[in-house]
């Protein structure tokens, strides 16, 4: 009996292990150590709301939203625990291992800088992290690191990706509000702002 059950028990063990580490790392991916978020552009062009595709034109995960519930795109942040349209990162929620080895070294990441508009854009990015100079890294080949601009047009529905790695100075790290910065996406040709995404870094452990 036990011999017959053993493979099933081992299978459940493997499944639970995957679920356990998946949920554990979810918190670190969305709250503290390596925060992954999405950015939708354009949400504004100048002062007016931009023309965008609807959820069902765009497809992908968006198509799961019933059209009657569709409220349009936030500036981003869908994956994070802050409100939509903002990124909230709490370095006080870092895991024990991270706190032991390099608590000040943080990663922000978007694999979903998505053009939800109706025309192609070549974009330029500005990351304001309160004077902290991040290291920029992307999987994309069409990127000019000198100007922080794409060298290809991003077609409607397509995505771009970017990672930022940065060290927070100790004195700043130990403040309750570490930084109130933002990511801004520009049309690289016209210079218009296409969207802004506030990035707030807090430390819930700071006294």
């Amino acid at each position, binding site marked *: 009996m036990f011999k017959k059950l053993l493979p099933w028990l081992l*299978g459940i063990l*493997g499944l639970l292990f*995957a679920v356990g580490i*998946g*949920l554990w790392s*979810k918190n670190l991916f969305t709250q503290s150590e390596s925060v992954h978020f999405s950015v939708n552009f354009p949400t504004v062009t100048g002062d007016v709301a931009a023309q965008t595709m609807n959820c069902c034109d765009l497809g*992908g995960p968006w198509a799961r939203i019933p059209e009657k519930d569709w409220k349009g795109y936030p500036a981003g942040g869908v994956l994070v625990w802050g409100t939509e349209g903002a990124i909230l990162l709490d370095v006080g929620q870092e895991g024990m291992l991270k706190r032991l*080895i390099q608590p000040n070294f943080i990663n922000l990441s978007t694999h979903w800088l998505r053009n939800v508009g109706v025309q192609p854009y070549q974009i330029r990015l500005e990351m304001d992290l309160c004077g902290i100079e991040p290291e920029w890294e992307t999987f994309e*080949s069409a990127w000019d690191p000198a100007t922080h601009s794409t060298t290809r047009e991003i077609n409607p529905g397509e995505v771009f990706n970017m990672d930022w790695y940065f060290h927070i100075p100790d004195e700043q790290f130990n403040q309750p509000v570490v930084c109130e910065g933002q990511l801004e996406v520009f049309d690289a040709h016209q210079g218009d702002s296409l969207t802004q995404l506030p990035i707030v870094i807090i430390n819930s452990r700071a006294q």
Partner: protein
Amino acid sequence: MYPRLYRKLLPNWLKRFGFFLLGVVMLYAPFALLTRLLLAITNVPSNADVHSVCLRMPIQWLAQPWMYATMFEKPVYLVAVLVLPVIALFLGPLFCGWLCPAGGMTEYLSRLVPPRFQINMTGKVNPVPIRYGFMFGMMGVAFIGGNACCSFCNFTHAQNLINALFGNMLGLQYWASFAVVSFILWFFVLGLFTRGGRGWCNFLCPAGALMGFAHWAGAKLKVSRYVKIDRSACNNCGLCATYCPTLAIQKNGERSEVNAHACNICMDCKIVCPSRAISYSAPQALQSPAPLPAGEPAGD
């Protein structure tokens, strides 16, 4: 493990090492020659490294029908869920045993560690259900917002180590908690300090699980070449099981069996077999659960 047989195995190890180096040149930055070719053919504007042809995310997407369009828009994603499983269906998981640098790296480095310091799981645990369980868990946890796919990626660690060899240290400078845990598990606990060095592949690799399933299905459908033991020639000495890095050979009473779900066709078993009872040969039916006739592997 008997190091006296290492000399006998050396030609096969050197041959496979050459293929693993080829795997690095084909798939890993700074070379990634095959990846560059695939990206150029499919018009994907991405830097070429191991992430460009991800072997994990597409498996997670198998449970997410709304991602199928993405896979067909960027056909490089089909390598994980179509190309490699189809090769495994007919020839077995040759990618795992002969090309995958992430698996090869820990397997070869584990040979530098004296066996007395290594965990020996031979005959003690069947890795197959755990690996399938992990694969389904990785697919399932995505539905509740979790991520076991990217957080536990050994391919990233292998790429970071290769990057470091070529002067790009960023991957070894930044560590998230889950990356520390997965690196320790992949490289040390299930790698260097597990006999055979393939613990991660055996228990936690979803790509290996999918190819293992395809290999088993191919054997079941009589279309796959697979490793089999000729029972009339086998003296049941157990050397094949001792040297199998994937725990695919189990000594079962008076006979040894090859588990098609776990075998990666490395052929070490064939080389150490003193009675030349093991071969990698043409399609033949798998029968189960009844006792197997001579020459047929178990696993179903």
